[in-house]
Protein backbone atom coordinates (compact mmCIF):
# COMPACT_ATOMS: atom_id res chain seq x y z
CA UNK A 1 0.00 0.00 0.00
CA UNK A 2 1.25 3.44 -0.82
CA UNK A 3 2.55 5.41 2.15
CA UNK A 4 0.40 8.44 1.40
CA UNK A 5 -2.84 6.52 1.05
CA UNK A 6 -5.76 7.87 3.05
CA UNK A 7 -9.18 6.50 3.76
CA UNK A 8 -12.03 8.30 2.12
CA UNK A 9 -15.55 7.80 0.85
CA UNK A 10 -16.23 5.32 -1.93
CA UNK A 11 -16.79 6.40 -5.49
CA UNK A 12 -18.88 5.03 -8.33
CA UNK A 13 -21.59 4.09 -5.83
CA UNK A 14 -19.51 1.51 -3.97
CA UNK A 15 -20.99 1.22 -0.52
CA UNK A 16 -17.77 0.51 1.37
CA UNK A 17 -15.14 3.09 2.11
CA UNK A 18 -12.08 2.62 -0.05
CA UNK A 19 -8.55 3.65 0.59
CA UNK A 20 -7.69 6.65 -1.53
CA UNK A 21 -4.23 7.15 -2.94
CA UNK A 22 -2.73 10.51 -3.66
CA UNK A 23 -1.73 9.94 -7.25
CA UNK A 24 0.88 12.17 -8.87
CA UNK A 25 1.10 11.91 -12.61
CA UNK A 26 2.98 13.88 -15.23
CA UNK A 27 0.54 14.41 -18.10
CA UNK A 28 1.42 16.38 -21.23
CA UNK A 29 4.39 17.88 -19.45
CA UNK A 30 2.38 19.09 -16.44
CA UNK A 31 2.55 17.57 -12.95
CA UNK A 32 -1.00 16.68 -11.83
CA UNK A 33 -2.26 15.29 -8.54
CA UNK A 34 -5.60 13.79 -7.53
CA UNK A 35 -6.99 11.34 -5.00
CA UNK A 36 -8.32 8.06 -6.32
CA UNK A 37 -8.68 4.45 -5.24
CA UNK A 38 -6.12 1.91 -6.42
CA UNK A 39 -8.60 0.39 -8.83
CA UNK A 40 -8.94 3.65 -10.80
CA UNK A 41 -7.98 2.86 -14.38
CA UNK A 42 -5.59 5.31 -16.00
CA UNK A 43 -8.30 6.03 -18.59
CA UNK A 44 -10.81 7.00 -15.89
CA UNK A 45 -8.20 8.93 -13.93
CA UNK A 46 -7.45 11.06 -16.99
CA UNK A 47 -11.11 11.60 -17.82
CA UNK A 48 -12.82 11.85 -14.43
CA UNK A 49 -10.14 13.05 -12.06
CA UNK A 50 -8.06 15.22 -14.37
CA UNK A 51 -10.92 16.20 -16.72
CA UNK A 52 -8.88 15.32 -19.79
CA UNK A 53 -11.80 13.89 -21.74
CA UNK A 54 -9.99 13.65 -25.07
CA UNK A 55 -9.02 10.08 -24.20
CA UNK A 56 -12.02 7.95 -25.12
CA UNK A 57 -13.13 4.73 -23.50
CA UNK A 58 -14.59 2.09 -25.79
CA UNK A 59 -14.40 -1.56 -24.80
CA UNK A 60 -12.43 -1.40 -21.54
CA UNK A 61 -10.69 -4.67 -22.23
CA UNK A 62 -7.93 -3.68 -24.58
CA UNK A 63 -9.51 -4.61 -27.89
CA UNK A 64 -10.68 -1.34 -29.46
CA UNK A 65 -7.69 0.96 -28.93
CA UNK A 66 -9.79 4.12 -28.38
CA UNK A 67 -8.13 4.79 -25.00
CA UNK A 68 -4.55 4.53 -26.31
CA UNK A 69 -2.22 7.09 -24.74
CA UNK A 70 1.55 7.43 -24.88
CA UNK A 71 3.44 6.17 -21.84
CA UNK A 72 7.02 7.43 -22.03
CA UNK A 73 6.31 7.91 -25.73
CA UNK A 74 5.08 4.36 -26.30
CA UNK A 75 1.42 3.69 -27.12
CA UNK A 76 -0.38 1.73 -24.42
CA UNK A 77 -3.98 1.03 -23.45
CA UNK A 78 -4.95 3.38 -20.64
CA UNK A 79 -7.90 1.08 -19.81
CA UNK A 80 -5.43 -1.71 -19.00
CA UNK A 81 -3.30 0.27 -16.56
CA UNK A 82 -4.04 1.54 -13.10
CA UNK A 83 -3.36 5.20 -12.42
CA UNK A 84 -1.48 4.24 -9.27
CA UNK A 85 0.97 2.19 -11.40
CA UNK A 86 1.32 4.90 -14.03
CA UNK A 87 2.83 7.39 -11.58
CA UNK A 88 6.38 6.54 -12.57
CA UNK A 89 5.77 7.48 -16.18
CA UNK A 90 5.29 10.47 -18.48
CA UNK A 91 1.84 10.34 -20.06
CA UNK A 92 0.91 12.03 -23.34
CA UNK A 93 -2.77 12.22 -24.25
CA UNK A 94 -4.45 13.56 -27.38
CA UNK A 95 -4.59 16.97 -25.69
CA UNK A 96 -0.79 16.92 -25.50
CA UNK A 97 -0.40 16.01 -29.15
CA UNK A 98 -2.47 18.95 -30.29
CA UNK A 99 -5.32 20.92 -28.73
CA UNK A 100 -5.59 23.88 -31.08
CA UNK A 101 -7.49 23.79 -34.40
CA UNK A 102 -5.09 26.44 -35.68
CA UNK A 103 -2.00 24.37 -34.86
CA UNK A 104 -2.82 20.75 -35.53
CA UNK A 105 -0.17 18.06 -35.30
CA UNK A 106 0.81 16.38 -38.59
CA UNK A 107 -1.38 13.38 -37.80
CA UNK A 108 -4.36 15.53 -36.89
CA UNK A 109 -3.97 17.61 -40.05
CA UNK A 110 -3.68 14.45 -42.14
CA UNK A 111 -6.88 13.04 -40.63
CA UNK A 112 -8.69 16.28 -41.50
CA UNK A 113 -7.32 16.38 -45.05
CA UNK A 114 -7.95 12.70 -45.78
CA UNK A 115 -11.34 12.47 -44.05
CA UNK A 116 -9.86 9.89 -41.70
CA UNK A 117 -12.72 10.27 -39.24
CA UNK A 118 -16.47 10.42 -39.21
CA UNK A 119 -17.93 10.25 -35.70
CA UNK A 120 -14.51 10.79 -34.16
CA UNK A 121 -14.91 8.42 -31.22
CA UNK A 122 -11.93 6.23 -32.14
CA UNK A 123 -9.81 9.13 -33.40
CA UNK A 124 -7.81 9.99 -30.24
CA UNK A 125 -6.56 6.40 -30.08
CA UNK A 126 -5.60 6.41 -33.74
CA UNK A 127 -3.81 9.75 -33.46
CA UNK A 128 -1.75 8.72 -30.43
CA UNK A 129 -0.92 5.35 -32.01
CA UNK A 130 0.09 6.82 -35.38
CA UNK A 131 2.04 9.70 -33.81
CA UNK A 132 4.28 7.26 -31.93
CA UNK A 133 4.48 4.93 -34.91
CA UNK A 134 5.77 7.65 -37.24
CA UNK A 135 8.44 8.61 -34.71
CA UNK A 136 9.97 5.17 -35.24
CA UNK A 137 8.88 4.62 -38.85
CA UNK A 138 8.93 7.96 -40.66
CA UNK A 139 8.32 6.56 -44.14
CA UNK A 140 5.79 3.73 -43.98
CA UNK A 141 4.34 1.90 -46.98
CA UNK A 142 0.53 1.59 -47.15
CA UNK A 143 1.00 -2.00 -45.95
CA UNK A 144 3.06 -0.81 -42.97
CA UNK A 145 0.32 1.73 -42.27
CA UNK A 146 -2.30 -1.01 -42.09
CA UNK A 147 -0.14 -3.00 -39.68
CA UNK A 148 0.45 0.10 -37.57
CA UNK A 149 -3.27 0.66 -37.01
CA UNK A 150 -4.21 -3.02 -36.69
CA UNK A 151 -4.81 -2.62 -32.95
CA UNK A 152 -7.42 0.14 -33.33
CA UNK A 153 -11.05 -0.28 -34.33
CA UNK A 154 -13.09 2.22 -36.33
CA UNK A 155 -16.74 1.52 -37.01
CA UNK A 156 -17.34 4.40 -39.47
CA UNK A 157 -14.65 4.86 -42.05
CA UNK A 158 -13.81 1.43 -43.40
CA UNK A 159 -10.15 2.31 -42.67
CA UNK A 160 -9.18 3.34 -46.23
CA UNK A 161 -8.99 7.01 -45.35
CA UNK A 162 -7.16 6.28 -42.11
CA UNK A 163 -4.51 4.34 -44.02
CA UNK A 164 -4.24 7.29 -46.41
CA UNK A 165 -3.93 9.62 -43.42
CA UNK A 166 -0.92 7.67 -42.09
CA UNK A 167 0.93 8.23 -45.38
CA UNK A 168 -0.18 11.85 -45.55
CA UNK A 169 0.94 12.47 -41.96
CA UNK A 170 4.38 11.12 -42.84
CA UNK A 171 4.49 13.61 -45.73
CA UNK A 172 3.39 16.52 -43.56
CA UNK A 173 6.11 15.68 -41.04
CA UNK A 174 8.69 15.83 -43.81
CA UNK A 175 7.25 19.10 -45.18
CA UNK A 176 7.33 20.73 -41.75
CA UNK A 177 10.88 19.57 -41.20
CA UNK A 178 12.07 21.25 -44.42
CA UNK A 179 12.70 24.81 -43.29
CA UNK A 180 11.61 27.62 -45.56
CA UNK A 181 8.84 25.77 -47.40
CA UNK A 182 5.80 28.07 -47.21
CA UNK A 183 7.12 29.30 -43.89
CA UNK A 184 6.13 25.99 -42.31
CA UNK A 185 7.30 25.44 -38.73
CA UNK A 186 10.32 23.24 -38.37
CA UNK A 187 9.17 21.02 -35.53
CA UNK A 188 6.18 18.72 -35.56
CA UNK A 189 4.55 20.37 -32.53
CA UNK A 190 4.49 17.29 -30.34
CA UNK A 191 4.35 18.17 -26.69
CA UNK A 192 6.37 16.25 -24.16
CA UNK A 193 9.92 14.99 -24.09
Amino acid at each position, binding site marked *: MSADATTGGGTHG*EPTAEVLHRIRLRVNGVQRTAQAPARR*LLSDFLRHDLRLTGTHVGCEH*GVCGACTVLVDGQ*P*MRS*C*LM*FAVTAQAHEITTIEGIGNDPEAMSPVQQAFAECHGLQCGFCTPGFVTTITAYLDGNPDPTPEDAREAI*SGNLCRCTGYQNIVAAVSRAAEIRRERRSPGVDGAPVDDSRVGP
Partner: protein
Amino acid sequence: MKPAPFVHHAPRTVDETVAVLADVGHDGKVLAGGQSLVPLLNMRLASPGHLVDVNGVDGLDAVDVTDASVRVGALVRHAGLERDPAAFAALPLLRQALRNVAHPAIRNRGTTVGSIAHADPAGEMPAVLVLTDGVVEVVSSRSRREVAARDFFLGPLETTLAQDELVEAVRFARLAPGTRTAFLESARRHGDYAMAGVAVAVEVVDGEVRSARASFVSVTPVPTVLDLAPALGGAATGAPLRAAVADDLVALVRDHVEPEGDIHATAGYRRMLAAELTKRALGAALAEDAEGAA
Protein backbone atom coordinates in the same frame (compact mmCIF):
# COMPACT_ATOMS: atom_id res chain seq x y z
CA MET B 1 -16.71 -2.82 -16.46
CA LYS B 2 -14.70 -1.46 -13.54
CA PRO B 3 -12.53 -3.60 -11.26
CA ALA B 4 -13.81 -4.46 -7.81
CA PRO B 5 -11.95 -2.75 -4.96
CA PHE B 6 -8.58 -4.22 -4.01
CA VAL B 7 -5.67 -3.37 -1.78
CA HIS B 8 -2.68 -2.23 -3.82
CA HIS B 9 0.76 -3.40 -2.72
CA ALA B 10 3.84 -1.86 -4.29
CA PRO B 11 6.88 -3.84 -3.09
CA ARG B 12 10.36 -2.66 -4.11
CA THR B 13 12.22 -5.95 -3.85
CA VAL B 14 11.62 -9.61 -4.62
CA ASP B 15 11.86 -10.41 -0.89
CA GLU B 16 9.11 -7.89 -0.10
CA THR B 17 7.02 -9.26 -2.97
CA VAL B 18 7.08 -12.86 -1.79
CA ALA B 19 6.49 -11.75 1.81
CA VAL B 20 3.31 -9.96 0.74
CA LEU B 21 2.23 -12.91 -1.40
CA ALA B 22 2.68 -15.25 1.57
CA ASP B 23 0.71 -12.84 3.74
CA VAL B 24 -2.32 -12.36 1.46
CA GLY B 25 -2.51 -16.01 0.39
CA HIS B 26 -5.23 -17.08 -2.01
CA ASP B 27 -6.70 -13.57 -2.12
CA GLY B 28 -3.60 -12.14 -3.83
CA LYS B 29 -2.59 -11.78 -7.45
CA VAL B 30 0.63 -10.52 -9.03
CA LEU B 31 0.25 -7.52 -11.35
CA ALA B 32 3.02 -7.04 -13.92
CA GLY B 33 1.98 -5.85 -17.39
CA GLY B 34 -1.66 -6.56 -16.66
CA GLN B 35 -2.65 -6.99 -20.29
CA SER B 36 -4.46 -10.25 -19.52
CA LEU B 37 -5.23 -9.61 -15.84
CA VAL B 38 -6.78 -6.13 -16.08
CA PRO B 39 -9.41 -7.21 -18.66
CA LEU B 40 -10.37 -10.02 -16.26
CA LEU B 41 -10.62 -7.49 -13.42
CA ASN B 42 -12.55 -4.97 -15.54
CA MET B 43 -15.08 -7.64 -16.48
CA ARG B 44 -15.06 -8.89 -12.88
CA LEU B 45 -14.22 -12.39 -13.98
CA ALA B 46 -11.61 -12.09 -11.25
CA SER B 47 -11.75 -9.93 -8.12
CA PRO B 48 -8.71 -10.59 -5.92
CA GLY B 49 -8.65 -8.62 -2.68
CA HIS B 50 -4.95 -7.81 -3.05
CA LEU B 51 -2.91 -6.88 -6.09
CA VAL B 52 0.82 -7.21 -5.66
CA ASP B 53 2.11 -4.71 -8.22
CA VAL B 54 5.68 -5.72 -9.12
CA ASN B 55 6.26 -2.87 -11.58
CA GLY B 56 8.47 -1.07 -9.05
CA VAL B 57 10.57 -4.09 -8.10
CA ASP B 58 14.25 -3.67 -8.91
CA GLY B 59 16.20 -6.20 -10.90
CA LEU B 60 13.40 -7.92 -12.79
CA ASP B 61 13.77 -6.16 -16.14
CA ALA B 62 16.91 -7.76 -17.56
CA VAL B 63 17.41 -9.97 -20.62
CA ASP B 64 20.55 -12.07 -20.14
CA VAL B 65 21.97 -14.11 -22.99
CA THR B 66 24.40 -16.89 -22.12
CA ASP B 67 25.79 -19.79 -24.14
CA ALA B 68 22.95 -21.96 -22.87
CA SER B 69 19.90 -19.75 -22.63
CA VAL B 70 18.10 -16.44 -22.95
CA ARG B 71 16.95 -15.46 -19.46
CA VAL B 72 14.01 -13.07 -19.35
CA GLY B 73 13.11 -11.26 -16.12
CA ALA B 74 9.55 -10.86 -14.91
CA LEU B 75 9.29 -7.20 -15.96
CA VAL B 76 10.67 -7.52 -19.49
CA ARG B 77 7.94 -6.29 -21.82
CA HIS B 78 7.19 -8.28 -24.97
CA ALA B 79 8.29 -5.28 -27.06
CA GLY B 80 11.60 -5.05 -25.22
CA LEU B 81 12.41 -8.71 -25.81
CA GLU B 82 11.23 -8.44 -29.43
CA ARG B 83 13.70 -5.59 -30.06
CA ASP B 84 16.61 -7.06 -28.07
CA PRO B 85 19.39 -7.73 -30.63
CA ALA B 86 21.31 -10.21 -28.45
CA ALA B 87 18.17 -12.25 -27.74
CA PHE B 88 17.36 -12.31 -31.45
CA ALA B 89 20.85 -13.41 -32.39
CA ALA B 90 20.78 -16.19 -29.80
CA LEU B 91 17.25 -17.41 -30.46
CA PRO B 92 15.49 -15.92 -33.53
CA LEU B 93 12.35 -17.83 -32.61
CA LEU B 94 11.70 -15.31 -29.83
CA ARG B 95 11.23 -12.41 -32.23
CA GLN B 96 9.48 -14.63 -34.78
CA ALA B 97 6.85 -15.46 -32.15
CA LEU B 98 6.69 -12.08 -30.38
CA ARG B 99 5.65 -10.31 -33.58
CA ASN B 100 2.43 -12.29 -33.28
CA VAL B 101 1.68 -11.41 -29.65
CA ALA B 102 -1.39 -9.15 -29.74
CA HIS B 103 -0.90 -5.59 -31.03
CA PRO B 104 2.11 -3.31 -30.53
CA ALA B 105 0.32 -1.27 -27.84
CA ILE B 106 -0.26 -4.47 -25.85
CA ARG B 107 3.31 -5.67 -26.40
CA ASN B 108 4.58 -2.35 -25.06
CA ARG B 109 3.04 -3.12 -21.67
CA GLY B 110 2.55 -6.88 -21.43
CA THR B 111 5.37 -9.04 -20.11
CA THR B 112 6.64 -12.30 -21.58
CA VAL B 113 6.88 -13.89 -18.13
CA GLY B 114 3.34 -12.76 -17.29
CA SER B 115 2.01 -14.38 -20.44
CA ILE B 116 3.72 -17.63 -19.42
CA ALA B 117 2.44 -17.50 -15.83
CA HIS B 118 -1.06 -16.77 -17.19
CA ALA B 119 -0.88 -20.04 -19.19
CA ASP B 120 -3.52 -19.18 -21.75
CA PRO B 121 -3.55 -21.90 -24.45
CA ALA B 122 -3.82 -19.03 -26.96
CA GLY B 123 -0.57 -17.52 -25.68
CA GLU B 124 2.42 -17.66 -28.01
CA MET B 125 5.24 -17.57 -25.48
CA PRO B 126 4.23 -20.67 -23.46
CA ALA B 127 4.49 -22.65 -26.70
CA VAL B 128 7.94 -21.19 -27.41
CA LEU B 129 9.16 -21.87 -23.87
CA VAL B 130 8.13 -25.51 -24.11
CA LEU B 131 9.60 -25.96 -27.59
CA THR B 132 12.99 -24.74 -26.39
CA ASP B 133 12.91 -26.98 -23.28
CA GLY B 134 12.87 -23.84 -21.18
CA VAL B 135 12.82 -23.42 -17.42
CA VAL B 136 10.62 -21.35 -15.10
CA GLU B 137 12.42 -19.77 -12.12
CA VAL B 138 10.02 -19.65 -9.18
CA VAL B 139 10.57 -17.96 -5.83
CA SER B 140 8.56 -17.79 -2.61
CA SER B 141 9.30 -16.88 0.99
CA ARG B 142 9.73 -20.61 1.64
CA SER B 143 12.02 -21.64 -1.17
CA ARG B 144 13.37 -21.15 -4.63
CA ARG B 145 12.79 -23.74 -7.33
CA GLU B 146 13.13 -24.30 -11.05
CA VAL B 147 10.41 -25.99 -13.03
CA ALA B 148 10.92 -27.45 -16.50
CA ALA B 149 8.50 -25.80 -18.92
CA ARG B 150 6.98 -29.15 -19.85
CA ASP B 151 6.00 -29.68 -16.19
CA PHE B 152 4.85 -26.12 -15.53
CA PHE B 153 1.54 -26.07 -17.42
CA LEU B 154 -1.27 -28.18 -15.98
CA GLY B 155 -4.25 -27.00 -18.01
CA PRO B 156 -5.80 -23.89 -19.51
CA LEU B 157 -4.89 -20.95 -17.20
CA GLU B 158 -3.47 -23.45 -14.71
CA THR B 159 0.15 -24.00 -13.68
CA THR B 160 2.12 -25.58 -10.86
CA LEU B 161 2.58 -22.15 -9.25
CA ALA B 162 1.45 -22.01 -5.64
CA GLN B 163 -0.45 -18.97 -4.42
CA ASP B 164 2.59 -17.53 -2.62
CA GLU B 165 5.01 -18.02 -5.53
CA LEU B 166 6.37 -15.49 -8.01
CA VAL B 167 7.89 -16.30 -11.39
CA GLU B 168 11.07 -14.31 -11.17
CA ALA B 169 12.28 -15.16 -14.67
CA VAL B 170 12.12 -17.76 -17.41
CA ARG B 171 14.99 -19.23 -19.37
CA PHE B 172 14.48 -20.10 -23.02
CA ALA B 173 17.11 -22.70 -23.85
CA ARG B 174 19.18 -21.96 -26.95
CA LEU B 175 18.84 -24.49 -29.73
CA ALA B 176 21.60 -26.64 -31.20
CA PRO B 177 23.75 -24.95 -33.85
CA GLY B 178 22.19 -25.36 -37.28
CA THR B 179 18.65 -25.30 -35.89
CA ARG B 180 16.21 -23.32 -37.99
CA THR B 181 12.96 -22.01 -36.58
CA ALA B 182 9.71 -20.47 -37.71
CA PHE B 183 6.49 -19.30 -36.10
CA LEU B 184 3.16 -18.97 -37.89
CA GLU B 185 -0.36 -18.34 -36.70
CA SER B 186 -3.71 -17.46 -38.18
CA ALA B 187 -6.16 -15.03 -36.61
CA ARG B 188 -9.30 -13.30 -37.88
CA ARG B 189 -7.49 -10.00 -37.51
CA HIS B 190 -3.71 -9.80 -37.20
CA GLY B 191 -2.88 -9.49 -33.51
CA ASP B 192 -6.09 -11.06 -32.24
CA TYR B 193 -6.13 -14.42 -30.48
CA ALA B 194 -4.99 -17.00 -33.00
CA MET B 195 -7.39 -19.69 -34.19
CA ALA B 196 -4.28 -21.86 -34.48
CA GLY B 197 -0.54 -21.30 -34.38
CA VAL B 198 2.67 -23.29 -34.50
CA ALA B 199 6.32 -22.92 -33.59
CA VAL B 200 8.80 -25.25 -35.31
CA ALA B 201 12.47 -26.00 -34.70
CA VAL B 202 14.36 -28.02 -37.30
CA GLU B 203 17.92 -29.15 -36.74
CA VAL B 204 19.80 -29.37 -39.99
CA VAL B 205 23.22 -30.98 -40.39
CA ASP B 206 24.96 -30.96 -43.79
CA GLY B 207 21.72 -30.03 -45.54
CA GLU B 208 19.76 -32.93 -44.02
CA VAL B 209 17.10 -32.72 -41.36
CA ARG B 210 18.37 -34.35 -38.17
CA SER B 211 15.41 -33.53 -35.90
CA ALA B 212 12.21 -31.53 -36.16
CA ARG B 213 9.78 -30.52 -33.43
CA ALA B 214 6.70 -28.36 -33.12
CA SER B 215 4.51 -26.85 -30.42
CA PHE B 216 1.12 -25.27 -30.88
CA VAL B 217 -1.02 -22.28 -29.96
CA SER B 218 -4.80 -22.39 -29.36
CA VAL B 219 -5.22 -26.05 -30.35
CA THR B 220 -3.85 -27.90 -27.32
CA PRO B 221 -4.93 -27.38 -23.67
CA VAL B 222 -1.30 -26.96 -22.63
CA PRO B 223 1.70 -26.48 -24.88
CA THR B 224 3.35 -29.80 -25.66
CA VAL B 225 6.07 -30.77 -28.11
CA LEU B 226 5.32 -32.92 -31.12
CA ASP B 227 8.22 -34.80 -32.72
CA LEU B 228 7.88 -34.31 -36.47
CA ALA B 229 10.83 -36.55 -37.36
CA PRO B 230 8.67 -39.62 -38.14
CA ALA B 231 7.11 -37.69 -41.03
CA LEU B 232 10.22 -35.96 -42.25
CA GLY B 233 12.44 -38.75 -43.55
CA GLY B 234 14.85 -37.43 -46.15
CA ALA B 235 13.67 -33.84 -46.12
CA ALA B 236 16.42 -31.44 -47.12
CA THR B 237 16.95 -27.71 -46.96
CA GLY B 238 16.21 -25.56 -49.95
CA ALA B 239 13.80 -28.08 -51.48
CA PRO B 240 10.01 -28.07 -51.18
CA LEU B 241 8.51 -30.77 -48.97
CA ARG B 242 7.66 -33.84 -51.01
CA ALA B 243 3.94 -34.61 -51.24
CA ALA B 244 4.25 -37.89 -49.33
CA VAL B 245 6.12 -36.14 -46.51
CA ALA B 246 3.50 -33.43 -46.40
CA ASP B 247 0.69 -35.99 -46.14
CA ASP B 248 2.40 -37.78 -43.26
CA LEU B 249 2.97 -34.48 -41.54
CA VAL B 250 -0.67 -33.50 -41.83
CA ALA B 251 -1.74 -36.83 -40.32
CA LEU B 252 0.75 -36.45 -37.48
CA VAL B 253 -0.42 -32.94 -36.56
CA ARG B 254 -4.12 -33.77 -36.90
CA ASP B 255 -3.67 -36.64 -34.43
CA HIS B 256 -1.74 -34.51 -31.96
CA VAL B 257 -3.92 -31.42 -31.58
CA GLU B 258 -7.13 -31.27 -29.52
CA PRO B 259 -8.87 -28.08 -30.63
CA GLU B 260 -12.23 -26.89 -29.36
CA GLY B 261 -14.68 -25.04 -31.55
CA ASP B 262 -15.99 -21.57 -30.78
CA ILE B 263 -17.59 -18.60 -32.51
CA HIS B 264 -14.42 -17.95 -34.52
CA ALA B 265 -13.70 -21.43 -35.89
CA THR B 266 -14.89 -25.01 -35.58
CA ALA B 267 -12.66 -27.67 -34.07
CA GLY B 268 -12.30 -29.26 -37.50
CA TYR B 269 -11.19 -26.03 -39.10
CA ARG B 270 -8.63 -25.40 -36.36
CA ARG B 271 -7.26 -28.92 -36.83
CA MET B 272 -6.87 -28.35 -40.56
CA LEU B 273 -5.32 -24.96 -39.91
CA ALA B 274 -2.77 -26.39 -37.45
CA ALA B 275 -1.65 -28.98 -40.01
CA GLU B 276 -1.41 -26.47 -42.85
CA LEU B 277 0.46 -23.93 -40.73
CA THR B 278 2.93 -26.64 -39.68
CA LYS B 279 3.61 -27.49 -43.32
CA ARG B 280 4.16 -23.84 -44.17
CA ALA B 281 6.29 -23.20 -41.10
CA LEU B 282 8.53 -26.15 -41.99
CA GLY B 283 8.79 -24.83 -45.51
CA ALA B 284 9.82 -21.44 -44.18
CA ALA B 285 12.34 -22.93 -41.76
CA LEU B 286 13.90 -25.12 -44.48
CA ALA B 287 14.12 -22.33 -47.06
CA GLU B 288 17.67 -21.34 -47.98
CA ASP B 289 17.26 -17.83 -46.63
CA ALA B 290 15.43 -18.80 -43.44
CA GLU B 291 15.79 -16.22 -40.67
CA GLY B 292 18.32 -17.43 -38.15
CA ALA B 293 19.56 -20.24 -40.37
CA ALA B 294 23.06 -21.11 -39.30
